[in-house]
């Protein structure tokens, strides 16, 4: 297996996630796009770990998974409070801090 096939798959997932995070209005869908980005990073970490025959890639992938779980928990709590205050989770309307 080529190293690049995994790296290209990771790059594709990353770019799809960036598109989704920029183009979506619904806050839950933006969080899903961020999960795509984090998974792209994880594929790269594990692929390089296998390439160098070193377990450190897997260790960092596990750290990223733990941080992603924390991020989704706090993110969905924030989405819930936005919904409670505005009765909608359209994030184009959340621009209170816009200069």
């Amino acid at each position, binding site marked *: *297996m080529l190293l690049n096939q995994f790296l290209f798959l990771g790059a594709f997932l990353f770019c799809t996630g960036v598109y989704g995070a920029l183009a979506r209005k619904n806050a839950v869908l933006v969080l899903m796009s961020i999960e795509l980005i984090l998974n792209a990073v994880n594929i790269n970490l594990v692929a390089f770990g296998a390439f160098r025959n070193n377990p450190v890639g897997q260790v960092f992938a596990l750290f990223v998974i733990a941080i992603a779980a924390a991020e989704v928990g706090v993110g969905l709590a924030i989405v819930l409070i936005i919904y409670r205050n505005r009765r909608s989770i359209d994030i184009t309307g959340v621009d209170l801090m816009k200069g």
Partner: protein
Amino acid sequence: MVAENIAFGVIALAMAFGAIRVVTTKNVVHAALWLVLVLSGVAANYILLAAEFVAVVQVIVYIGAIVVLFLFGIMLTRAPIGQDSELDNNQRWAALVLGLLLFGVLGSVLAKAFGRQHVHITSVQRTADVADSVFTTYVVPFEVISVLLLAALVGAVVIARRD
């Protein structure tokens, strides 16, 4: 070697299609279900790379916990179940251009940097080796992440509580 490449091709095509559907579908619940396909594909890639422990953790944490959390988020915010044409904002063409540009830059850099280097998987990377690494060299980041998870848990409860 050939079997691995065929497996990778099938999985990668399914993942690419699923990822595109996650960011383009008009139905919020369907987006979560397509996300499940992409996450299982990532787990299958870990198996191909002989990283079994990470693959199992991926299934348990991502598909088991995070997707359920997303579905709860969709339910609690009463997103319209079914078709909804108001999911994309007006900067989607700029976002598409940026995504394609980013993929072009990343792809050309990767092709130049790693060319045709092969991954030689001689044996499965043992979970014991991963555990040794976590609990010796990376024990401080590991403990920091435990505190981070606790802080995120308390923070989520404090933010979402009705007072």
